[in-house]
């Protein structure tokens, strides 16, 4: 069932635990924020103890690291507060150390945390997707580029954007006295962690510093308010579209059906094609056909999404 709806959770309420997974060096502690029940993908607050040392190595799944306090040094480069690193699966990073300690967030996206000592990339590593930026020092706040948009006073810095899925990782802030009087839901998962500040939502009440949520698609949130300002980091797993409304009592099934209906009006030609084509398994000429990757649910006109395929020659473009 992927990850359950964890909202709200405040990590200040629980102590750090020692990371004991094989491969990880001593001196790393964590608080589990949410974990996928199928594949072990998870989000954690992490603490690198002063003197932490990790040899060069890789993970079997891509991960994202954001530094909140202190610093870590990777190779020669010091990553202080605001540093964000995206490491694709199998990409070996240089030795990592933290002489004075650090706290941060660590997101393992498609599998459980793993660390394999290695000074070279795995043969399947996609190194060109590696990204590293200091969001506090080298990025400016911008308005959200969503249509429809969140109310003025919510600003973002986009740390990473996936061109295929539109999944993105971003810092966001709410200015003091920010308010937005509507209810929102999305077709994507939304995840966030409050680095500093308290904000309010009509469903869940106040979310303080250290507050966290993992919110599956189609769950109502909002109205919104923030008295003193908030700095947070957010992530989605696909495109974030703001389905705004003002009915506090709708459930995710109703919200999803409404989203599908709205798609019909917003993208009528595309909706018609997907809905009437026998083989509802569109091929993107930019990528391998999904059968090869096995990542695209579809049916062959019979509505049976749960079916297998015999190995056959891949279509070529």
């Amino acid at each position, binding site marked *: 069932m992927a990850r359950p*709806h964890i909202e709200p959770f405040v990590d200040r309420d629980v102590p750090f635990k020692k990371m004991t997974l094989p491969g990880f060096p001593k001196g790393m502690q964590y608080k589990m924020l949410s974990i996928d*029940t199928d594949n072990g993908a998870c989000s954690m607050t992490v603490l690198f103890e002063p003197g932490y040392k990790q040899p060069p190595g890789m993970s079997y799944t*891509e991960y994202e690291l954001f530094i909140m306090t202190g610093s870590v040094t990777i190779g020669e480069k010091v990553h202080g507060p605001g540093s964000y690193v995206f490491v694709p699966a199998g990409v070996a990073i240089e030795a990592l150390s933290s002489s004075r300690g650090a706290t941060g967030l660590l997101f393992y996206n498609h599998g459980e945390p793993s660390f394999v000592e290695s000074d070279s990339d795995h043969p399947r590593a996609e190194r060109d997707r590696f990204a590293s930026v200091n969001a506090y020092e080298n990025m400016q706040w911008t308005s959200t580029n969503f249509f*429809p948009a969140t109310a003025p006073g919510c600003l973002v810095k986009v740390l990473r954007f996936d061109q295929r899925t539109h999944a993105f990782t971003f810092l966001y802030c709410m200015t003091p006295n920010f308010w937005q009087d509507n209810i929102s839901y999305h077709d994507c998962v939304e995840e966030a962690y409050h680095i500093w500040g308290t904000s309010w939502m009509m469903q869940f009440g106040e979310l303080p510093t250290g507050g966290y949520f993992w919110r599956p698609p189609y769950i109502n949130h909002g109205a919104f308010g923030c008295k003193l300002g908030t700095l947070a980091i957010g992530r989605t797993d696909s495109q974030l579209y703001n389905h705004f409304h003002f009915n*506090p009592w709708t459930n995710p099934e109703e919200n999803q059906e409404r989203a599908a209906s709205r798609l019909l009006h917003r993208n009528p030609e595309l909706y018609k094609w997907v809905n009437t084509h026998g083989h509802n398994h569109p091929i993107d000429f930019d990528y391998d056909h999904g059968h090869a990757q096995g990542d695209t649910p579809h049916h062959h006109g019979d509505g049976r999404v749960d079916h297998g395929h015999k190995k056959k020659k891949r279509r070529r473009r």
Partner: protein
Amino acid sequence: MKAIPHKRSREVEAWLKRELVEQKRRYKKIVAEQDALAPKRDKWVAEFLQRIQTRGTHVHWDQMRKVRPEEIPVKPKRKFRVVF
């Protein structure tokens, strides 16, 4: 590529099991806390439904519109859940 196929050791499987048990506990605690918030939430909802008729509801960015009284939804009989 999302992840590189690999075999999980027993230690890793045991760790995952422990974390999933803890998460279940965390989830139950959240549901209980959110249930306890119901009276406050009902008040917030009532205030919200008032505000969107007087000041308006956000449609896009700073665009707002006032909601007519007949558009205000009626609370259904089922339990008002916010955690799913």
